[in-house]
């Protein structure tokens, strides 16, 4: 069911909808109509969950009654603020800190689910980040327990979680009666660097560049020699990298206009929710480099809308500069859903075998087989995690769009939020290229430091030693497991190679799934391998277990384990791995 409300220019959400109704998904279409502010002013207790800290900072500056909760704010501080609050509680919290609100309410005997209205802002982020922020889905599990709750997003989203249907959620769509479309130029190019360089040289305006890669931003700053004219807003980790490793001082984790320069870079932490209130209208560049890192891939229907919506006082121009890779397979939503349902069926069949196993040994074997089925990635605490499924579908859909520039163009044209002009700029292949420099402190070096610390903790471990190991495990569980299983000498012999260490750990487990685990360790999704390498590697793995197959191993054997398409690797025949089959 869908309800529509019209909004006129200059009107705010509270003018047409005084109170966000419960059990609704509010698709507000345009940013800056005051949905969050409406809830802050609503006469009820509210918990507003937002994806990142910057939005909390920005709202706390404007509304003094907000209790902002994020990393570094303790549960005791939350309790103190709740006790001191004399009017309606207005809590703004990140998913990672939501547990503090729960604890504080428990201690104060506040019935959380009936007292508060829960509003999840920027709801598309619950799908976008589901694969790497488990707290997002944990918070959503709690969301469904609230008596009164709603989701808000400026971008259209499809949730497959059946609880939305069983709890009778209704969609509310806000329809602007005025022209709200963004003018954007989509520039398809084979040289992101040259395109940025040209724009920087010709533009006289202030420029805001949205690029989600600290290493790529740093390489651009160095190559374009713009260090004195630019600032970077990124995560705290990024700031430390810029200041500590790249010796670049103008990097910040919280936004303030005074810190901005002629050219200002923003990473994804600043794509959503917070307000960029500038005294001028900048040129905005959105960058996607499919060859650099997948973190830079922007979804036309979510990221691009969100980014342009940050500028509360408007922009001068917007350019989305991107490249494409024809090797990226094109899959539509229905095809992905069909594949997932096949994997789900396979998982359910195996689950039935597991549940009905007659012996302990059979149960163990089915348990191991269950783990190897790709659908097991979408199971959390024995339940299907629909947000992870939506995330997978979303990611593959976004990825598919960068296989061909026509798809990007058509996505822009299909969206009713953009007025598009499209450019194709192809440079000669010998043009000056950007080489992305990576951090000098590699994970390998950091892991060596950790192993040295672990080696200095002597057994039997004291209580303090166990606490240190627990701390380290929270940071890098992989290296702790490797150290405990293999020891320092073996890890050093393997030269801290993650692939080799994983292989040694798999060999150590002896769970019957070693061959498949080793194959998955050697071959990665999204990579291309030559036929020669595939045959060599499969032979190497089989020979480790003295397995001699009746037929000679050929490269297409890889298709038993992965969905593949043929491709060329340095002029040799090979395969591109699309996704796991086992």
């Amino acid at each position, binding site marked *: 069911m869908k309800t529509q409300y019209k909004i006129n220019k200059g009107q705010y959400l509270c003018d047409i909808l005084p109170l966000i109704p419960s059990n609704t998904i509010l698709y507000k279409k345009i940013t800056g109509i005051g949905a969050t502010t409406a809830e802050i002013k609503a006469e009820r207790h509210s918990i507003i969950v937002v994806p990142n800290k910057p939005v909390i900072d920005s709202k706390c500056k404007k509304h003094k009654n907000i209790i902002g909760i994020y990393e570094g704010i303790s549960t005791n501080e939350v309790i103190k603020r709740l006790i001191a609050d004399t009017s309606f509680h207005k809590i703004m919290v990140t998913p990672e800190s939501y547990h503090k609100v729960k604890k504080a309410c428990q201690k104060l005997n506040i019935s959380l689910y009936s007292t508060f209205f829960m509003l999840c802002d920027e709801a598309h982020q619950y799908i976008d980040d589901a694969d790497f922020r488990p707290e997002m889905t944990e918070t959503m599990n709690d969301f469904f327990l609230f008596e009164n709750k709603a989701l808000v997003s400026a971008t259209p989203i499809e949730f497959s979680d059946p609880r939305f249907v069983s709890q009778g959620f209704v969609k509310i769509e806000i329809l602007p009666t005025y022209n709200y479309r963004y003018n954007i130029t989509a520039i398809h190019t084979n040289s992101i660097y040259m395109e940025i360089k040209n724009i920087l040289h010709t533009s006289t305006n202030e420029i805001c560049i949205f690029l989600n890669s600290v290493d790529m931003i740093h390489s651009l700053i160095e190559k374009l020699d713009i260090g004195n004219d630019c600032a970077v807003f990124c995560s705290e980790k990024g700031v430390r990298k810029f200041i500590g490793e790249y010796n670049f001082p103008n990097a910040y984790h919280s936004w303030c206009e005074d810190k901005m320069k002629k050219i200002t870079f923003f990473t994804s932490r600043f794509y959503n929710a917070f307000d960029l209130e500038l005294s001028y209208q900048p040129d905005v560049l959105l960058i996607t480099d499919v060859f650099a890192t997948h973190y830079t891939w922007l979804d036309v229907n979510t990221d691009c809308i969100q980014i342009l919506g940050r500028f509360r006082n408007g922009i001068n121009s917007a350019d989305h500069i991107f490249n494409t890779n024809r090797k990226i397979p094109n899959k539509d939503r229905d095809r992905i859903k069909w594949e997932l349902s096949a994997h789900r069926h396979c998982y359910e069949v195996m689950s039935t075998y597991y549940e009905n196993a007659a012996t302990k040994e059979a149960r163990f074997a089915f348990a191991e087989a269950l783990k190897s089925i790709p659908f097991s990635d979408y199971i959390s605490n024995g339940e299907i995690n629909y947000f992870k499924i939506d995330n997978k579908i979303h990611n593959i859909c976004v990825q598919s769009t960068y296989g061909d520039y026509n798809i990007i163009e058509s996505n822009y044209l299909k969206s009713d939020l953009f007025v598009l002009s499209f450019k194709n700029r192809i440079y000669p292949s010998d043009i000056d290229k950007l080489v992305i420099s990576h951090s000098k402190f590699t994970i390998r070096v950091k*892991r060596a430091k950790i192993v040295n610390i672990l080696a200095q903790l002597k057994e039997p471990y004291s209580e*303090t030693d166990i606490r240190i190991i627990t701390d380290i495990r929270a940071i890098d569980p992989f290296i702790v497991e490797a150290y405990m299983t293999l020891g320092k000498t073996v890890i050093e012999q393997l030269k801290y190679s993650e692939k080799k260490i994983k292989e040694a750990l798999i060999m150590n487990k002896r769970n019957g799934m070693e061959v498949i685990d080793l194959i998955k360790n050697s071959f990665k999704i999204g990579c291309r391998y030559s036929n020669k390498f595939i045959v060599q590697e499969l032979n190497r793995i089989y020979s480790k277990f003295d397995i001699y197959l009746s037929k000679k191993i050929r490269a297409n054997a890889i298709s038993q384990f992965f969905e593949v398409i043929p491709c060329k690797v340095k002029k040799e025949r090979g395969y591109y791995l699309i996704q796991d089959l086992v």
Partner: protein
Amino acid sequence: MRNLPNFTNSDAHIFIKELMQSKEHLDITMKDNPYIEVCTERVANFPYFINNVSLEWIINYLKTGRHDDFGVNPNKRDILGTDYQTKVLKDLVDKGYPVSRVPFIREYMPHITIIVFFLFGKLVFRLKRNLQIMDYLNSKGI
């Protein structure tokens, strides 16, 4: 802080000295207030309130194995300030002791764990992460 009934700071002092006399490897965790937690591989953590002199006594044992506690009054309270942990750490860094920091890999944690390994034990700091301390540690290559 763990509550140990009828276990005064003088008792803790005597117990630490006994551990020192038997050349035990002491694991010391610095805490605010100011107190420290002491444990060994056989003894669980127990609290010991510190002042300037007793802290020096403990660090001296960790370095040299000497347990002489002349002039150490465990019941004397000094105002060490809220940043005394950082001061102690900086002092040890300046004196060139081998200070190891548990590096962050992909995600940053709210606390930084720093360990100073000595011949007769180790001193563990769990400092709240902030820009100042991170800058300091980076500048010292830690």
